[in-house]
């Protein structure tokens, strides 16, 4: 059986490395030291409530299709995290066969269930401003859970007992 939606195996190592580095950088950005890494640029906004004249948030004053000034460090970081994460998670194993595919599908199902269970718990029990952190983590949580779960399952698969 041929599956065409997976990336070639040769992308695995490099995307894994990029993913790890950009993820660490993203975590750093959301801590206090992240402020030093700002790169301000004029960006196109589909929707925004940043006031163009003062660059301050104007809650409720929504504008569409406009240009605003914003730090793009986190945007670049998220771009790398998501793209390299998807490529790493969905590139072929060295010996791709039907059992690996079944492990992957199984892992994907469990990761989705686990992710939404966590999100639901957070939705029910996190209130106020900290909830924006939950939304932020929700951007990539499923990807992270899937990668960890799949790597663990593949580790178990590769270390299956050798024939007696």
């Amino acid at each position, binding site marked *: *059986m041929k599956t065409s939606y997976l990336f070639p195996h040769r992308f695995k190592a490099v995307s894994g490395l990029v993913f790890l580095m950009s993820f660490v950088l993203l975590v750093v950005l959301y801590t206090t030291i992240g402020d030093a890494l700002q790169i301000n640029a004029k960006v196109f906004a589909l929707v925004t409530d940043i006031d163009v004249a003062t660059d301050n948030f104007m809650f409720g004053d929504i504008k569409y299709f406009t240009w605003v000034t914003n730090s793009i460090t986190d945007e670049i970081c998220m771009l790398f995290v998501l793209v390299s994460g998807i490529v790493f998670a969905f590139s072929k194993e060295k010996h791709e*066969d039907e*059992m*690996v595919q*079944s492990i992957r599908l199984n892992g994907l199902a469990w990761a989705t269930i686990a992710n939404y269970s966590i999100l639901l718990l957070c939705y029910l029990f996190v209130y106020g401003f900290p909830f924006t952190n939950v939304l932020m983590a929700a951007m990539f949580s499923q990807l992270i859970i899937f990668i960890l779960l799949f790597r663990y399952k593949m580790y178990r698969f590769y270390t299956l007992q050798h*024939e007696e």
Partner: protein
Amino acid sequence: MKNNIKVQRAIHNLTQQDLAERISVSRQTINALEAGKYVPSTVLALKLAKLFDKTVNEIFELEPED
């Protein structure tokens, strides 16, 4: 589902690695098949049958709970 891949493999004097290469799967998959932890696709079952020169029914057998 039960199978006698291990027996067939012994008859044909193949290691798990040899068999894996013949039907282009990983050795771990053969291991899981023999241990009954994985049920192969129809394509893989037919490949095994062809290699061992048996019918699929002679290699795989349904169990009461299937």
